[in-house]
């Protein structure tokens, strides 16, 4: 039997204890994997907001979040006024509202709260929202009962082209289903601007204005020009700014993930120290025998440390499998509009942390075992 086989065999002498130690560490590893996959998925979804062809700037009232506001708070005429600013090639007034979906058992279609995010925009301006093609057809601007849905919303609401959906007390026909790659946009729907304004008593009002910048213009310069032109009225946020803000938010998740990683190392390390010290205590006489037959202290140290690492790497495998299955099931059940991403980096982090826990947890017991005087070890009862 090789030395490696011996190291693999030893930690599982007491199967219950080994299983409990593995479960403890695997929970920490699974948490790290889940957070990593969710953060990665959200980052990818955020990056796709910078879609070519879509509006680069969102104009909202001063004091708003910059992501668009609920209801109509801006005059629709401002969309035309903005066309006079140098570098602006196209604009579109948009009104966004959260609609209750009736007749659907699962009203949480987007996974980001109850209801469906519906935007009103002229159909010929949909390219500014990143919608260039559609499965089915676009709604007509004068229509009062047509809308299009994003793929995630359609899937969660179980709607196809031709289906009917009741919003704001009116039945709408789904004329088309679009996909932009942006998980927020794909979790909502669009209808004609004047239809939504009429239904919600927001005639002549919009919540934000999408601004397309001319090819030869600088986005930041145009953004600043808009702010300068309407100093106390409008603020302009570029798509890059929006992505950065979202990424800042994801940065907090990353920090939390790092903190959980540290906690996993500390808690897992203490657990492994406990398990390995117990193991060394129980095997004191055996260690004496190994020394008596000529084993070097370094070999005993390697063996105990190796056993500790094997235990934590086994936990890493269990944690990764549980984490990957868990996050996919969780996001499928909640209907979140983005896909979790498993990257090599996440796997390396999980395995690296497990390895580190194995070393930290095994070092002291291994050192202790290697320093046992053989005569004392052999006398141990």
């Amino acid at each position, binding site marked *: 039997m090789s*030395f490696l086989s011996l190291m693999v065999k*030893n930690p599982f002498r007491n199967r219950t204890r080994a299983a409990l130690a593995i479960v403890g560490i695997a929970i920490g590893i699974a948490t790290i994997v889940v957070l990593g996959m969710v953060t990665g998925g959200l980052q990818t979804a955020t990056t796709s907001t910078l879609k070519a062809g879509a509006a680069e700037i969102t104009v909202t009232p001063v004091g708003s979040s910059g992501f668009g506001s609920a209801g109509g708070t801006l005059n629709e005429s401002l969309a035309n006024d903005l066309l006079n600013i140098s570098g602006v090639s196209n604009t579109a007034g948009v009104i966004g509202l959260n609609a209750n979906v009736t007749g659907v058992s699962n009203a949480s279609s987007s996974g980001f709260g109850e209801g469906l995010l519906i935007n009103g925009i002229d159909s010929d301006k949909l390219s500014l929202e990143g919608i260039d093609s559609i499965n089915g057809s676009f709604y007509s601007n004068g229509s009062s009962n047509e809308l299009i849905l994003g793929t995630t919303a359609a899937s969660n609401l179980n709607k196809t082209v031709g289906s009917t959906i009741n919003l704001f007390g009116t039945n709408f026909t789904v004329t088309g289903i679009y996909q932009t790659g942006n998980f927020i946009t794909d979790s909502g729907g669009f209808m004609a601007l004047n239809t939504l304004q009429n239904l919600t008593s927001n005639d002549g009002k919009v919540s934000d204005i999408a601004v397309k910048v001319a090819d030869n213009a600088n986005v930041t310069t145009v953004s600043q020009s808009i702010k300068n032109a309407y100093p106390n009225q409008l603020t302009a946020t570029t798509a890059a700014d929006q992505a950065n803000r979202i990424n800042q938010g994801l940065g907090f998740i990353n920090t939390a993930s790092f903190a959980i990683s540290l906690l996993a190392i500390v808690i897992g390390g203490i657990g492994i120290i406990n398990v390995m010290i117990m193991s060394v205590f129980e095997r004191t006489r*055996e260690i*004496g*025998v190994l020394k008596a*037959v*000529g*084993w070097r202290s370094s070999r005993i140290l390697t063996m105990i440390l190796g056993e500790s690492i094997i235990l934590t790497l086994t936990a890493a495998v269990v944690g990764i499998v549980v984490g990957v299955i868990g996050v996919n099931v969780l996001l499928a059940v909640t209907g979140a509009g983005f896909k979790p991403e498993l990257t090599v980096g996440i796997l390396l982090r999980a395995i690296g942390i497990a390895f580190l826990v194995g070393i930290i947890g095994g070092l002291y017991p291994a050192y202790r075992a290697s320093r046992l005087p*053989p*005569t004392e070890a052999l006398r141990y009862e």
Partner: protein
Amino acid sequence: MNKPENIIEIHDLKKSYDKGKIKALNGINLEIKKGEFVSIMGPSGSGKSTLLNMIGALDRADEGSIKVSGIDLMTAKDLNKFRSQEIGFVFQMHNLIPNLSVVENVEIPMYETKLSSKEMRGRALELLELMNFSNLSDVISQDPTKLSGGERQRVAIARALVNHPSIILADEPTGALDSKTGDTILTLLKDLHQKENVTLILVTHEPYVANMAERIFNMLDGKIMEETNQKIKVHNLKQSKI
């Protein structure tokens, strides 16, 4: 014919514990020739096992000199290598590792050699065959805790011999066995000593066990009180043991 050389030379060897309060060895002088069978007798606490530990380099003496196989154990740095190459230990409680199979237990000392796993397995099986384990295919996976006391001690002897040591140190090897099984083990050890020309040092407090040796040393209070090559009179000692 050449006179056999001394394999063990001990002069005025002293070892104490508990800051000098317990004098385990109090000036031991001993010379043992290569290939001899020697037994060390004495009551509990007389220093027999301590002396055996010194010869086996499991512990270092405080004073005096001790040379084994030409190596000065007072100054030698790598005692592990010495133990691995020169010494085979047989303990009273056999000390087999419970989660390893019989053959894996015999392989344990060979991890410090440069043998491959295959060579280790071959050598271990060879030794187990020598120890009268007839069904070798069974012992590859056999759990040592399922063996009888005598069988376990035979496995322990195989483990002691596996690295071709020049000295076998047996500390009460029959102490945990019934007299019949003990006799079998002693006969086995004696046969091995003769066949392999290995030096055998056996610690016991049983006169009838000591009688099997060529020389007998009696210890008391950390000193060798007398040496004899005369057999000790045994009065129903076997019966008294039972």
